[in-house]
């Protein structure tokens, strides 16, 4: 008796190939979407973190008449392709024990700017757009005034009389916003999905405080 071999027919094979193709396309589209979301999220978080670090750096600047350059402020220069930390300094330096070098009221002179560190490259799927009192189509600069931490806004090195700036990092999938005023805030439209019960952290005794208190008590005695 001849044994008959069983196999897929051409139609069956084609149907399977089409189904695998459709599944792969759906999977790839989801992966690319997720990639866009992750890139935009990462960009905005880095931007937020850098802005806060810059503000704190400027608030902690020390006054010193020995410095060759007096720093007016530290901030960020943002273009569509990158953002970088910049130091806005006065080349003349300090001459007396004044509290700080008064912040200049006019536009920024490019020669008084110094880029610190390596600029952060913005991936082409997460380009920022700026919302200010005047729409800025070039380079947005936010400088936090030394010691005070007050933000000043510049578009293409020209001072903008605005009290806040909104930087939107946006692609075809999601849109996230950093709002800069006296208090830098990330506004996210992503809904929170955490729905478990509240965890209450009890008041803790600060070990550092106890240690300092001990040293201080010894000092006074």
């Amino acid at each position: 008796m001849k044994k008959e071999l069983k196999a897929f027919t051409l139609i069956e094979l084609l149907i399977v190939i089409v189904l695998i193709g459709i599944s792969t396309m759906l999977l790839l589209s989801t992966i690319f979407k997720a990639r866009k979301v992750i890139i935009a999220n990462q960009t905005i978080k880095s931007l937020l973190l850098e802005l806060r670090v810059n503000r704190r750096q400027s608030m902690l600047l020390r006054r010193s008449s020995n410095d060759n350059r007096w720093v007016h402020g530290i901030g960020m220069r943002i273009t569509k392709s990158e953002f970088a930390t910049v130091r806005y300094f006065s080349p003349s330096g300090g001459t007396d024990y004044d509290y700080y070098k008064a912040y200049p009221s006019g536009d920024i002179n490019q020669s008084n700017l110094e880029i610190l560190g390596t600029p952060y490259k913005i991936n082409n799927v997460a380009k920022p757009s700026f919302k200010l009192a005047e729409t800025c189509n070039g380079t947005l600069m936010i400088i936090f005034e030394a010691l005070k931490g007050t933000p000043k806004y510049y578009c293409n090195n020209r001072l903008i009389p605005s009290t806040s700036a909104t930087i939107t990092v946006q692609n075809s999938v999601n849109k996230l916003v950093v709002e800069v005023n006296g208090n830098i805030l990330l506004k996210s439209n992503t809904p929170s999905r955490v729905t478990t019960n509240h965890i209450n952290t009890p008041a803790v005794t600060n070990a550092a405080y106890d240690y300092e208190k001990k040293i201080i008590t010894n000092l006074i005695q």
Partner: protein
Amino acid sequence: MKNRLKAFTLIETLISILLMSIISMITLFCLNAILKASYLISARTSVRDNSEFAIEFIKRKLKNANPHSISCTETNNPDGTINQRVINWSPLIGSETYSLYLKKNTNNNSLIFVENIGGPPHEIVLTYEDVNIKDFDIINNCSNITPYIDNKGVAHVLVEFSFTTESVLKWGKNKPAVGDVKKYVAVLVSN
């Protein structure tokens, strides 16, 4: 010759389905736990980061103070409870004055530091909107912030205060993910 088909029995199939369900549920539970842990860590980091910076900033300013210039004021509510506590001081060199107080906003409470270096007093927001400052307290009362002169004639003032923070990130029914974290600060100012 008749081909005989071999297949799982009903019991085997049911056991397989059950096992697969258990494995899927464990995987889901683990992934969910990772997400929750990440969320909670973000909230804790925000609270710690904001508090530590505010403490270090205040300490740095206070360390430079003239001990004789430090004062503490309290304003009361009509019912006698304390409404606001403020610590004021001037540095050893210079005529500027500094104040530290809690400012209550409509939406959130921020720790605000005020400096007066000529012109209108300038407010510096020390904590960002990731955290709420729930309470600000002067330890051992305002009246105890007075200079102590040691046997070498050096004046010392011990400034102690605390503040309680909570995260703005929510966890469940509109309650903060991290709540009631109390921070104590002690600064010895000497001339």
